[in-house]
C-alpha cells in the first residue's frame, strides 16, 4: 500500500504525534542532580520571580502559610495512616526544614496548624488527647494552641 519512503514518513509523523502527548520535564531540579537546564537559566527564576521588595515581603508570609498547610496535611496523615509519634515528629521536622524552620516547637503556628489538621481528619476534640503525640504535650501551652487551631 505504501512505498518504503512513504512508510518511513508516516512512522515519523505518528512518532511526532505521540511525542506531542508527553508532558513537561521538571525545571525545578530539586530532586535530581542532573537537569534539563545547564545554564544561568536555573538561577533566573530564583532571582526574578521574587525580585522587588513587595515580592520578598510576601514571600515570608507565603512561606509561613504553606508551612501551616503542610503541617496540617501531615497531621491528617498522622491520624489516617496511624503513624508513630516519632515518625510524625520527623515528618514535621522535614516540613519545617523545607520552609526554613529549624525549631518547629518554638513556632506557635506549628501547633495551630496541627489543630486544623486534626479537625480536618475528623478527630473529636475530646479524643485529641488520646493520640500519643498530643498526649505528650497535653500539659504544655502548645496544647492550647492545638485546640485554638482546631477551633479556627
Amino acid at each position, binding site marked *: 500500500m505504501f512505498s518504503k519512503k512513504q512508510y518511513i514518513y508516516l512512522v515519523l509523523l505518528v512518532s511526532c504525534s505521540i511525542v506531542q502527548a508527553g508532558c513537561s520535564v521538571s525545571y525545578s531540579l530539586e530532586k535530581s542532580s542532573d537537569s534539563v537546564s545547564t545554564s544561568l537559566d536555573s538561577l533566573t*527564576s530564583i532571582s*526574578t520571580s521574587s525580585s522587588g521588595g513587595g515580592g520578598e515581603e510576601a514571600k*515570608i508570609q507565603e512561606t509561613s502559610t504553606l508551612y501551616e498547610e503542610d503541617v496540617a496535611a501531615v497531621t491528617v496523615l498522622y491520624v489516617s495512616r496511624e503513624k508513630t509519634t516519632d515518625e510524625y515528629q520527623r515528618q514535621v521536622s522535614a516540613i519545617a526544614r523545607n520552609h526554613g524552620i529549624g525549631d518547629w516547637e518554638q513556632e506557635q503556628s506549628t501547633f495551630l496548624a496541627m489543630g486544623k489538621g486534626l479537625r480536618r481528619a475528623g478527630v473529636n476534640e475530646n479524643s485529641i488527647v488520646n493520640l500519643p503525640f498530643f498526649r505528650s504535650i497535653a500539659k504544655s501551652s502548645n496544647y492550647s494552641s492545638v485546640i485554638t487551631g482546631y477551633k479556627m
Partner: protein
Amino acid sequence: MYHLLRLLLFLCLFSSPGFLLASELGEENSTVSIDFLYINANAGEAAGGHTALRLGDTVFHYQFFPDSTFLLVREPWDAFLFLYNELHNRSISIASLPLNLSVATQIRYHFTELLAEQDQFFDSLEQLRQEKRLVQDLLVGDLEIPVNALGFFSEKLQSPYLPDLTAYIEETLPTGFFQEAVRKAEENVQRAAAVIDTEGRLGPAFQERLGVREALRIFSENRGLDSSAFIPSMQEERRLTATEKSLLKSFRDSLRETIVELLCSRRPDRGAAILLQTARYLAVCHSLSSERLLTLDPFFEDVHKVWLSDEEISGGRLAVLQEDLLEQSATRRDLFFKEERHPEIAYSLLETSRARAWELLRVNTTERKIRILTKTTLPTRPGIAVLDTPHISQERLQNSSQLLAVEFEKQKKRAEDLYGYNLINRNCATELIRSLNSTFPDEKLGRDGLGGWMEPESGLIFIPFLFYEQAVRDFSLQDEQFIQARRLRNLETLYEQEDDLLVWLRESNTLSSTLYQPRNKDTPFLFFTDDSLLLRPILGLMNLTYGAVQGVVGLARVPLDGGEHFNQALRGIFYSLPELTFGNIRKGSYSTGESEGTTGQKITTPGNRSTSL
C-alpha cells in the same frame, strides 16, 4: 527587567491569595474559582504540551524528573508563569471553574495532602538508603558516621562565644544538667544500637541519638565554628548599623532560648537541630563582633551544579544576574531586621540569598562552576562522628544488611509503581484529573462539588490539549483567558508600531529576528511556524532542509564535538516534521539576560478573573 518587575507586581496585586483570605474569614458560601491551565508545546522538555491546576496563587502540576519519577509539584504562580511563558516562550490557556469556597478549599487541602504523602514516601526511601549505607560502612569496620550540621564545627578551634552560652544553659537548667545529659546520650546510643538485636535494623534513631551526643560534646569541648562555615562578608554589603546590631542581639538571644528548649525537647531528631541553632548562634556572635553580617554556608554535598559557558561569562547575562541576586540579598537583609512574626523564616531566606549572591560573584574565567540552591533550605553540612566502640556484632550487621537490601529494592519497585511515568496511563493530564477526582469519596459527590466529572482513562484525554478541551466542556469552564507566548506577544507590539510586511519579513526567521536569538537548546531552524498556519508546511520543509544541511555539517564535525552538532540537527529535523502537516512544536526559547524590555503588557491574566483565588 524593569518591565518584568512591573508585570510581577501587577500579578501580585491582582492575584492576591483571596482564596485563603476568604477561607480565614469564614466566607464559606462565597464563590471562588480554580483554574485549569493548558501550556502549549515547545521543543526540548515539553513536546506534548502541559497541563496544570491553579489554586489561588499556587500551581499544582505533575512533572517528569530526570530520575524517571513523575511527581506532583507545587509552585508559586509567578514563578510558573515566568518559566513557562517568559523563558520557555509557551502560550498558556486558562479556564476557570467557579466553585463553592468550601469545595475549593477541600481541593487545595487534598492536593497538599497528596504532596505530603509523596514527600513522606521519598523521605523514607532516602532514610532507607542512608541506613543501608551506614550498615555497609559498619560492616567493613568504618566507624565514622555522618551527623547533620556537625560539619560547621571545627575539630581544633575553641570558641570565644560558646562559654557564655554554656554558662547561660547551666544557670537556666537544673544543676548537673550537662553531666546527666551526656550520660543519658551515651546510654541512648547504645540502646539504639541494641535495637538491631530485636528488630534486625537500626532505624533512624541510631544516627539521631548520635547527633544528640555530638551536640552535647560541642559544649563540653567548647568547639568553635570552622572558618569555612560562613558565607563571608561581600564587598557590596554594608557594615551593620547600630539598629541592626541591636536587632541582631535580640535574634541571638532568641536563638539562645531555642537551644535551651531543644536541649530539653523529646523530639527524636533534636541533635541536628541543636547543632544548627548553636552554629547559627555563633555565626551571629561573629557578625556582632566583626560588625559584618555573616551567615552559615547552606550549600550541601550533592547540590545541583552548573558550569557556565564562555558566552554566559563574557556576555551581559552574568552581570545582570549578579546584580539581581545582590539586590535580593540586600532586600532580604532589610526584611529580616523588620520581621517580627517569623524571624526564623526571614533568617533562612537571608542565609540562602547571601549564599546565592556570593556563589555567583565568585564566577570568573577560571572558576566556572556554580552551585545552585533551588529553594530555601536549612544549612545541614554534615560532620563525622566517630563511634568509640562498634557496639554491634558482625553477624547482626550482615543480617541487617541483607534485610535492608531486600526492603530497599521492594520500596524502589513501589516507587516505580506509584510514581512512574507512562505516556498514556500516567502523565500530566491523567494524574491531574485522578488527583482532582480523589478529593471526593465518590463520583456523585464529585459531580455535586465540581459540576461535572472526567475520567482519567476516557478517550484521548492523556493528550494535554484534548484534556483541556474536554475539561472546558465537561466542567462548563468559564472566563477562558489566553496568555500569549513571549515572542508572539512582542511580535504583536511590533506589528502595531511598524509596517506589517516589514515586520513579518524580518521576524519570521531566526537570522534577522530582533525578538529572538538562536539557542542550542532550540535546535537549528530557520523559520518560526507558530504564527503562520497556512505557510507552515512550506516553512516546515525549509526548516527540514536546513536541519538536514546542519546534519551534514554536524557529521563532518563529529571528530571535533563528539556528535553534538549532528545530534542537534537530527532533533531539529524531528521538530520540523509536524510542521509538514500543519502542526507546530518548536517556538524558540529565551534566557536570562534577554528578559530586558521584552515583556509585553498585553497579558490578560488575573485582572479580569471574577474572583481571584
